[in-house]
């Protein structure tokens, strides 16, 4: 009976082996060989070459800033939404996810229109006699694009974690004499950490690896590590170097996940 039921997973077993495991192995194969199929570390080590290292550095920096801004913007929002009435907050969450239904490339493109020298935002700023904003084709525009695109990935898990907190726990803290600040630091925040962690992972991985946002809002002048890899595959046709750099990228993703998972555990035992 049990073995018979396992048969249902057989198609997925084949599928996952063919389209998940083998392709990953191919990246490692190409990453560690040269054009004559001989073993080499050169592709992976090429990450320390000037251009590549610079791209990786900028990517990490921008991804960190974007993730931090997402946390700072989303936390109060999720907190407010989770505190409002149940029926209304479900609707509000829907309102915050709805923008994701418009094509993500077009939404990013719209920021070009908004941020341009004579764009909408500058027209409004000019009208209000405020200094104009010249951030299109700069790293600032890329960070804005990242924050804009990945913000819902932070809002959702935070909202889920915060709205699951049992109100009686908060009441208990207040009854025991904690003021609202102490209640937040000692009760609400620790309970929201799992949501925070998954939000950070969901924002930082796509931010670290994007090449579309930097392409559209950076004016092609700022290369992120995603741009470098994309060009190795689509323009230079150098799959070996591209794979080598992808392996480095995967190491960073694993590192980020390991760090957040570790912090998650420590956080759990601390409080």
């Amino acid at each position, binding site marked *: 009976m049990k073995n018979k039921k396992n048969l249902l997973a057989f*198609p997925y077993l084949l599928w996952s082996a063919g389209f998940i495991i083998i392709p990953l192995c191919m990246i490692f194969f190409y990453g560690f060989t040269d054009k004559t199929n001989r073993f080499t570390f050169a592709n992976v080590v090429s990450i320390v070459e000037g251009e590549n290292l610079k791209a990786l550095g900028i990517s990490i920096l921008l991804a960190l800033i974007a993730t931090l801004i997402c946390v700072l913007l989303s936390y109060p*929002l999720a907190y407010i939404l989770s505190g409002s009435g149940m029926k209304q907050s479900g609707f509000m969450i829907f309102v915050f996810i709805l923008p994701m239904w418009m*094509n993500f*490339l*077009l939404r990013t493109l719209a920021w070009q229109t908004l941020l341009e020298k004579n764009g909408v935002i500058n027209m409004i700023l000019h009208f209000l006699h405020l200094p104009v904003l010249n951030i299109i084709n700069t790293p600032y525009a890329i960070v804005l694009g990242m924050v804009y695109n990945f913000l819902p990935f932070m809002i959702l898990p935070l909202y889920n974690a915060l709205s699951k907190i049992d109100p009686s726990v908060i009441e208990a803290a207040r009854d025991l004499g904690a003021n609202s600040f102490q209640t937040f630091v000692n009760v609400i925040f620790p309970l929201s950490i799992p949501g925070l962690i998954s939000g950070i992972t969901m924002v930082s991985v*796509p931010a*670290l690896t994007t090449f579309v946002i930097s392409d559209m809002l950076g004016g092609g002048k700022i290369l992120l590590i*995603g741009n470098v890899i994309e060009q190795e595959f689509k323009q230079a046709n150098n799959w070996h170097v591209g794979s080598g750099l992808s392996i480095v990228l995967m190491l960073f993703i694993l590192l980020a996940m390991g760090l957040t998972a570790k912090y998650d555990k420590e956080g759990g035992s601390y409080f």
Partner: protein
Amino acid sequence: MKATLKKLYVLLILLLLYAPIITLVVLSFNASKTRAKWGGFTMKWYASLFRNEQVMNALYTTLLLALLSALIATLIGTAAAIAMNSMQAKIKMYFTAVTNIPMLNADIVTGISLMLLFLAIDATFGFPTVLLAHITFNIPYVILSVLPKMKQTNRSVYEAALDLGATPAYAFFKVVFPDILPGVIAGFFLSFTMSLDDFIITHFAKGPGLDTLSTKIYTEVKKGIKPEMYALSTLMFLTVLILIILVNYIPNIQKEKNLKENTRYEKGMVH
């Protein structure tokens, strides 16, 4: 005061999220061909949209791809989730790990790995390769939607059905399937959405000549976007908006109606 501040904050975030969407909707009515200038109100892009063969082809490809990949992923994923629920721990570990890989890995790495696979087996890059790629990244969404529902099902009800003489298949479809159906439907729609919005993986799995809406927009960004794209995205956004409102509110209205009728019965108003 505090409540006003909270509302103001929520409004500001909403403005950030909706500014590009409003921009795109406004641009779809802009008579001028460039994004930088307002040339007066027009509906002509909506009219020429349906005559633009390239855009219509991309739309057809996108929808067909989303429908097929979501359907196949739902079949494979649901079967796998049913089996995973009662699997021995060791085998289950493989399936859990393999499900997490595409979810946690960067899209660019998933895309590249599939591209390398298709190159290795000398496949022609086109609709079939893109379809295989979309099914691959969709299956995890189905599994993650169905598995929690599967865990909630009560095994003894299924066993009771067997004791009462039902065949395993009949018992499954009569007893278990209705319980997990919401998860299956959620997985299907999630897959459909992910496929509709994907750019990065499609970018690496497609060949020349085939375009989805996303890849079409990406190439047009460099040459100048045709205003028909704004019209199409506005129409798609409205369609989704209306669909979601219908799906969310019709059951509620129905429920309220039933509730009203029930209370009327109780009060003896209707006989």
